[in-house]
């Protein structure tokens, strides 16, 4: 539904004529993020400042129009999809790094700053920004904060919320606030902590103050092959049981390794049932000792063809394979559907075998490439959108995989967010009282429900999901 001409005019007065997009053709570009479901916004507003964001939200509040903040649109759970129409509030023009304080080791950035760009700029001061989603070449810090994004190095360093010191946010009434800041132990409720990861449903983020870390002087990266996913999973648990928390501990299955090797020629062992990529960083003594211990553990657990990167270029190549794995899978099928469940680490073999069985049942290839150290799996269901009725099969398979995750005591999402994709499954994990407690926060901060409506919480007006009849199992899966 198009916005009333008068509303469009109001928006144009705020951001300028060219910065409001409302022609049908142009709007299609903003139909999707990197997830499956799309919806065309009624208008796209390209905001260039906090003031513009605030004024746009005020207009939306006045007319009760949905507003969906949007960064690079790389999200994987439909967080940036305007499912109820309204305004896609694009913040990628706000892309200045406002401050890097090398003494305090902090940076203040606008939400449209690209994740990798921040680390590149910080690197000239010997610093880096730790959360490193695989989409870091494109995704924005604003999107990262809204989704509480992770990445391979979160095993040791923690996820986005552990690195955000404070934010400037615009609430649903258009008011602008700073929440938290560099001093620890702020007075009052930790609004910043709740707003990080709220997926655009509680606020639009206009500035982010993040912690930067010193680049470790030494990094060691090792690739190891395993006969099976099970043996690789046991090796993961064994490393951690030895008292070692590597900076990253990533797994790729046989199918992924094949695609990655064909694409990157990184020397991945294509005969392996699974491959582990292990990285430790710190001072030289530390990486040497830890890597020595890790090698022992891997070999004790049937690891073979151990290969340690000897140069930064080799390390980059090993990582290019991991970070580019999803693109490489395009060699097998043109489309993918990527899930993000998390299980207790010791349940990895069980959940991966369930994932394999589900793929076979639906006759869909499934490639696994994931953060093994965190128990955060990423099954990629591969398909060709041109195949008839395939989408329904893909969604069915994905849903069953998440079901398996929840039944093993896991969570629906480790780093992608709930968004649109998994909102119907929230009752699998949370009781009505749990969800009500979360929604109380939503109701008081966004009284009219204009901020990113239809996300995170089950939407009773949407079509029931296929396995809805099984939600009775939720209580058994409860974690208390």
């Amino acid at each position: 539904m198009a916005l009333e001409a008068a509303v469009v005019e109001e928006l144009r007065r705020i951001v300028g004529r060219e910065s409001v997009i409302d022609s049908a053709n142009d709007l299609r570009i903003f139909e999707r993020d990197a997830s499956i479901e799309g919806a065309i916004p009624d208008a796209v507003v390209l905001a260039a400042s906090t003031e513009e964001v605030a004024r746009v939200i005020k207009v939306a509040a006045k007319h009760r129009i949905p507003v969906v903040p949007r960064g690079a649109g790389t999200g994987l759970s439909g967080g940036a999809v305007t499912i109820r129409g309204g305004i896609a509030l694009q913040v990628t023009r706000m892309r200045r790094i406002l401050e890097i304080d090398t003494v305090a080791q902090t940076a203040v950035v606008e939400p449209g700053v690209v994740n990798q760009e921040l680390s590149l700029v910080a690197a000239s001061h010997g610093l880096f920004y730790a959360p490193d989603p695989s989409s870091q070449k494109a995704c924005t810090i604003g999107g990262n904060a809204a989704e509480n994004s992770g990445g391979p190095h979160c095993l040791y360093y923690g996820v986005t919320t552990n690195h955000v010191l404070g934010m400037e946010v615009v609430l649903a009434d258009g008011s602008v606030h700073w929440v938290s800041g560099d001093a620890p132990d702020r007075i009052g409720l930790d609004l910043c902590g709740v707003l990080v990861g709220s997926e655009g449903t509680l606020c639009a983020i206009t500035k982010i103050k993040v912690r930067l870390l010193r680049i470790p002087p030494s990094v060691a990266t090792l690739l190891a092959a395993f006969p099976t996913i099970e043996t690789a999973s046991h090796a993961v648990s064994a490393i951690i049981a030895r008292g070692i928390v590597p900076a990253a501990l990533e797994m790729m299955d046989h199918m992924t390794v094949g695609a990655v090797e064909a694409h990157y020629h990184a020397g991945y062992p294509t005969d392996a049932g699974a491959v582990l990529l292990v990285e430790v960083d710190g001072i030289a003594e530390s990486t040497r000792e830890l890597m020595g211990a890790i090698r022992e553990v891997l070999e004790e657990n049937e690891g073979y063809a151990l290969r340690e990167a000897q140069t930064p270029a080799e390390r980059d190549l090993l990582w290019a394979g991991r970070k580019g794995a999803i693109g490489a899978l395009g060699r097998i099928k043109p489309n993918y559907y990527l899930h993000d469940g998390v299980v207790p680490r010791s349940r990895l073999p069980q959940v991966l075998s369930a994932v394999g069985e589900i793929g076979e049942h639906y006759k869909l290839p499934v490639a696994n490439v994931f953060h093994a150290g965190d128990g955060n799996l990423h099954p990629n269901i591969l398909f060709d959108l041109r195949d008839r009725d395939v989408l329904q099969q893909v969604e069915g398979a994905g849903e069953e995989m998440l079901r398996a995750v929840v039944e093993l005591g896991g969570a629906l999402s480790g780093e992608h967010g709930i968004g649109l994709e998994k909102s119907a499954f929230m009752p699998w994990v949370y009781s009505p009282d749990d969800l009500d407690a979360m929604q109380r926060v939503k109701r008081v901060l966004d009284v009219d429900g204009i901020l990113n409506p239809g996300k995170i919480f089950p939407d009773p007006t949407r079509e029931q999901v296929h396995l809805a009849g099984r939600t009775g199992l939720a209580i058994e899966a409860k974690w208390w």
Partner: protein
Amino acid sequence: MVVKGPHELGGFAVSSRGPLIAPVVEKPATAEELARRLHEAAESRSAVIPVGGGRAGGMGGPPLRCDVELHTTNLDRVLEHSQADMVVSVEAGITLEALQAELGKAGQFLPLDPFNSPGHTIGGLLATGWAGPLRQRFGSARDFLIGIRVALPDGHLASAGGRVVKNVSGYDLMKLHFGAMGSLGVIVAASFKVFPRPLHDITVEKTNDSIEDAWDAAGRALDLPLAPSALELFSDGRVLARFFGSPDAVNRMVAELGWKAAGSSLWAEHSRRGPESWARISVPRNALRGIVSGLPEGAQWWASPGAGIAHWSFGDRLEDVRTARAAAESAQGSLVLMAAPAGVAGELGAWGTPPPTLEVMRRIKRAFDPDGILNPGRFVV
């Protein structure tokens, strides 16, 4: 019903304007029962003070009312410790020491070493947000709290998070309850990501002739490529540093510093500090030295320079506290009373200037505790 004198009220300093009738003491044995008691109190508009170990009972403003003390001490079970997953779920009333003993059996630990130990309960530590020297390396419990279960005044039990180390399913209500002084609900259980005991754990110390030398020494240690996991600086010029890591790495750092070896029992001793009247100064790391240097001559304090935190045993120097608070607040930080006689907390204010987002916080408070029965007067909302 046992009638107790004010000094026995679970360690709470009740305002002189406060209750003349002694509160009812409830010690429920299950989370469900606790939620029922809380709901009954809410129905009758009775003011409830949740009590854990009572170690932080002096924190916050003097309660305006106290009709019911709701103790979590009987909720003291380990619900599940999954050693391979390095995750633990516990009831809120378990003491930190009991939890560490359980984790220790598996060579694991929770990197929490709060002051005024021992005897803190997990629920109390989460509600107050207290942390100790290990915060330098591990952050506060905010950083490794992965799930929470809270009894709400309407009688419901609401959980958030889960039992996995990485989770973005729904709002992060762990953060909302962390440090909220039980103002939104009573924490009944929590799950944590736990850590393997360090391969090597070495403590060194340096005594300094002047406090300026001590700050410089602390700065040098913090600048090492393998920074200490804890570093404490004391007003007598002593600096204690604790290194965790692989043996060669730790040994090289210790050799580079050249400080004197010290026993790790010093840390247990340090954690017992809990003066009668003390305050926590929290400021951006860079501002700490300046603020602490501005404390009056002869002040007794200890600081975590890497975290931007200092604790100060301020005795009865109220005017000095006001001055220090003004300095901390002008550096965008805070000075909070950790414990003080009721009259002092009443006069100084426990928290200082409320944040500009106070109205937003109040809206959230009303959504959870519409009648304001939880800890009235103690917190900022």
